[in-house]
């Protein structure tokens, strides 16, 4: 059992170490705040991609969170004849939907009618990836909350909706938040659906209706490109992406620990 765990830890250390060694040395203020340099020129940065990724994932979360958690509450707290099972089943199917297929979906749903690539299409595809993950983890969390807690609350005359919001959700909050982090971190690094939606953009853009650069697509372009300098930039961008993910999860854990101490 310990061996199993050490396999995972080994790969974590290997990957983090590799990215750190290859990426950290290239990071400087210019890299974080400047626009990408033209192909072949050294210097330049990834500022537009950083902002782009952040904007797209925030809009996606605003769409995915209420749907995922709300649907999970509906499935678990209002058992219905078939509807709940159908939703849960569909969510399982949707987790299996490959990111690239989600990209095709967003392409057909948003890009085609709008007549061009847009960051909003990227948000739609990220949200589509996040919803089933949030829904399933939330459902698993809610179904493991003992019924006696619900009954105790209901017996005090507290209405059902307040029981759910005030008792069931807080009890399961740890697992809920784990699920949400998983969904966001999975979406944030996903380059595949961005290829035909947000597409990428070498310039500044804060308009969600226009193509926008994201960090993962930038890494893909640079890593598979022919220039040695691009490879170094890809490693540096990977390092930045990793740090963002790491800080997010550390902050979340700190928040969780503070809450459980109260």
């Amino acid at each position: 059992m310990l061996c199993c765990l050490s396999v995972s830890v080994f790969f974590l250390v290997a990957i983090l170490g590799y990215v750190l060694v290859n990426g950290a040395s290239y990071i400087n203020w210019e890299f974080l705040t400047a626009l990408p340099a033209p192909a072949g020129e050294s210097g330049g940065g990834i500022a537009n991609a950083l902002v782009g990724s952040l904007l797209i994932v925030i809009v996606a979360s605003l769409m995915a969170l209420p749907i995922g958690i709300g649907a999970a509450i509906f499935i678990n707290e209002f058992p219905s004849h078939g509807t709940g099972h159908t939703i849960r089943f569909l969510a399982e199917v949707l987790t299996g939907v490959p990111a690239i297929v989600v990209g095709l979906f967003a392409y057909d749903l948003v890009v085609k009618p709008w007549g061009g690539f847009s960051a909003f299409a990227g948000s739609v595809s990220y949200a589509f990836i996040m919803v089933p993950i949030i829904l399933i983890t939330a459902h698993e969390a809610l179904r493991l909350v003992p019924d006696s807690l619900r009954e105790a609350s209901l017996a005090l005359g507290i209405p059902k909706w307040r029981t759910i919001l005030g008792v069931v959700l807080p009890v399961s909050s740890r697992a809920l938040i784990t699920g949400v982090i998983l969904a966001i971190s999975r979406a944030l690094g996903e380059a595949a659906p961005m290829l035909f939606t947000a597409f990428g953009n070498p310039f500044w853009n804060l308009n969600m209706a226009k193509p926008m650069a994201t960090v993962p697509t930038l890494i893909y372009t640079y890593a598979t490109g022919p220039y040695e300098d691009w490879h170094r930039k890809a490693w540096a961008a990977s390092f930045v992406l990793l740090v963002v993910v790491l800080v997010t999860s550390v902050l979340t854990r700190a928040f969780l620990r503070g809450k459980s101490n109260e």
Partner: protein
Amino acid sequence: MSEPQATAGSLTHGLPSAEPRPVSARRQVINVGDRVFYIITRSLGIFVIVLAVLLVWNLVDGAWEAIRQFGLGFIVGTTWDPVTRVFSTLPTIIGTLVKGFIGVFLAVPISIGSAIFIAFYTPKWLRPVLSYPIELLAGIPSIIFGMWALFAMVPIVRVFQIWLKANFGWFFLFDGPAVYGVGVLAGSLILAIMITPIITSISKEILLTVPRAQIEGMLALGATKWEAIWQVALPYSRIGLFGAVMLGLGRALGETMAVTMVGGNSFAMIHSLFDPVHSMASQIASEFTEATYSLYVSSLIYVGLILFGITILTSLLAQLLIWRMAKGKLAILE
């Protein structure tokens, strides 16, 4: 969880009221809140169904031109030629399935083993410390796995493949172009590494919610710790564990960037573990923006539709298994 739960209204209904006067006014207020909450969550739930329908509709709509042109022959044919405008995709389908299943096969024992270790063989204070690396690994974006695989793993895989071919080349699985490094083996390995943390962290969360009383009861009956885990904890949580594995398989089949970078992107039938072959996802990713006419685009969306279909079948199979396994033991599960 399948039995209907009493609502606030029905719970108070049968009880003799402590107050002499009817409480209808007050109950009405409670019911309005519940009603609104019910309607909101229900419509969010229904929206998930709408999303799924919309997904299928859009894919079929996009692929319609290729479906009309090639029909089901698209699935069994072995020609992909944009120049003569003939498309069919059997080699890619097989390549996807082989990589995905090898990846899951490698990842599941490691993941479940790690989850059991963290949940049952680790003192409580140490658990967060041990889960932390797993959660970090889960948080690493797929594109970074791809880069790491391309620059760090592939050279090692290449040496390993050359050695395998030199010593065991008579075995058909090892009789392929070993010197590339990229190919089925590299693709499967990176998939296994990528899905391990997801399966592990969800399995662990699920195993941790097994009531301690059940395990302690088993231990008090004289069972060893392993017997308690094997006969109580795992059966109790297996629906959730299957959910976790499904999540892993879904990600493995659909994983695009890492497989595009190390799977070797050539349209060819798979003969050995070393062959560089397309996955369906990598084919779409690498060709979609180069597709210059609508039949080409439509064919790529058709590939996406088939990929989607395969994932539905996988989920269906898992659901059936879960249902069969849970049937006789529902008492433990509930």
